[in-house]
């Protein structure tokens, strides 16, 4: 550890840990490649990263992967937007009005405690294998984090700030806009993050379960055709998509709420 510690001091914390991660990931993929080539594990279960890469490139150039991705992205966007437009105001209202909260809360807590994917059979029963069932599943998956975070944002506002607002003559409407909403904003953004991660899962599942389009469908097909390299490549692709979503929302959060010194998990 001595040499490593010395290197860490020489390079400084930031550079050192970036370098550490780069080396870490490189070794990981090189190790994977070598291990897979050695043939200890059947290549049916563990394809080499290089083969995954060619499979993905192949699918992009030959197959209709762009079309499938576009379809998934569109469903994702519609479902998430609907969830934001409906979930955030609902959460804020429930946080602000006691009666409304009491009226709504059994259904919010009850419905949000159903494992989200379990809605799918019901949706298929009602709407068939249509786009509607997909969109509703995505919407249901994304909307509860938006509602619950909006609610929490309003409920956790510091009472003394509201008192200060009152003392300085702010009317109810002003206190809401200038104190409650700014306080709730980081909560709402973290609701976005949770909601979008869940929506991504819903997109994939809804396409896996009936349907003939989207990345979920491609994954199922790859599995059925024993195209393991493509299957792995698609999984890596989804991981990257998820990481991009999280990174974008994190950046949004830093942008919108620069006073927040720490980011909650």
């Amino acid at each position, binding site marked *: 550890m001595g040499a490593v510690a010395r290197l860490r001091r020489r390079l400084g914390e930031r550079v050192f840990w970036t370098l550490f991660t780069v080396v*870490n990931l490189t070794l990981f993929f090189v190790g994977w490649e070598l291990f897979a080539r050695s043939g200890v594990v059947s290549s049916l279960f563990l394809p080499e990263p290089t083969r995954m890469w060619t499979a993905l490139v192949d699918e992009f150039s030959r197959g209709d992967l762009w079309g499938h991705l576009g379809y998934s992205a569109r469903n994702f966007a519609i479902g998430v937007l609907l969830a934001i437009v409906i979930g955030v105001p609902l959460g804020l209202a429930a946080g602000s009005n006691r009666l409304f909260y009491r009226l709504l809360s059994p259904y919010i807590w009850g419905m949000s405690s159903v494992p989200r994917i379990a809605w799918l059979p*019901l949706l298929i029963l009602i709407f068939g294998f249509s786009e509607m069932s997909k969109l509703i599943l995505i919407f249901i998956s994304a909307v509860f984090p938006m509602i619950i975070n909006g609610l929490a944002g309003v*409920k956790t506002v510091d009472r003394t700030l509201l008192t200060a607002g009152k003392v300085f003559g702010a009317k109810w409407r002003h206190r809401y806009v200038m104190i409650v909403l700014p306080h709730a904003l980081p909560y709402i953004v973290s609701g976005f993050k949770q909601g979008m991660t869940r929506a*991504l899962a819903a997109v994939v599942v809804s396409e896996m379960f009936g349907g003939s389009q989207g990345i979920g469908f491609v994954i199922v097909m790859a*599995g059925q055709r024993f195209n393991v390299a493509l299957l792995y490549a698609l999984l890596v692709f*989804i991981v990257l998509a998820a990481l991009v979503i999280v990174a974008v929302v994190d950046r949004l959060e830093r942008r919108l709420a620069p006073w927040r010194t720490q980011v909650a998990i």
Partner: protein
Amino acid sequence: MAGAWRRAPWLFSVANVGTFLLLWQWLASAGVLSDLFFPAPTAVFAELWEGFSTGFLWVHIGSSFQNFTIGLGLSCLIAIPLGLVMGANRYVDALVSPYVWALASMPSVALVPLLVLMLGFTDAAKISLIVLSAVFPIMINCMAGVKTVDKSLLTAGQVFGAKKRQLYSRVVLPSAAPFVISGVNQGMSQALIGLVVAEMFATRQGLGYLMVRAQESFNAPLLYGVLILLVVISLTFVEIMRRLEARVAPWQTLDGI
């Protein structure tokens, strides 16, 4: 009236949900709601009753429960120690966390085709999916628990002569305990999703399978019945964890919202 609500808040909720169910019943029996899609609550409960009395529901519940418990137990065994070490050691953290975060942000349901390919339609495939769903939230929370230990508590421990091992067991672990619990909580709801998805795709048993069968045979009352069972099961687990949390970390003020 308002006073009564305030003294017994549950009364309001009971009245609220009761009204909702009555309204539904009325709309269903009046034929406003199609009973193919929205069966009357009484039909749903009758279906559940029959399922329990003939015993076929118990088989599926038993299968689900067994896989769920094994999967969640394994997840805890793997994730809690690893997460606690990750939080305490910067090098282990940097080594493992890219993979943990990557896999944690992946919708685990996308792994179903791969698991089926490798393990077939077996319990092993189901349990694997449950573990892959639950293990990362637990790990990440444990890590956060160790990382957010109040520095002044560590200093206090050192001042009073605690050795490194004692610091870990007397200061770090207790203050990480609520995080561990909330990690297990999150892991649990992920595990339930993993379970249902695995059963929907990959078996002939369990509540997820039952829902797919109900959907294919247009048995809406059974479908709603299973959904209700899932709500009850999930809320039961949440309540158990709440009790456990009150036990393990009674100094924590609960109910943030």
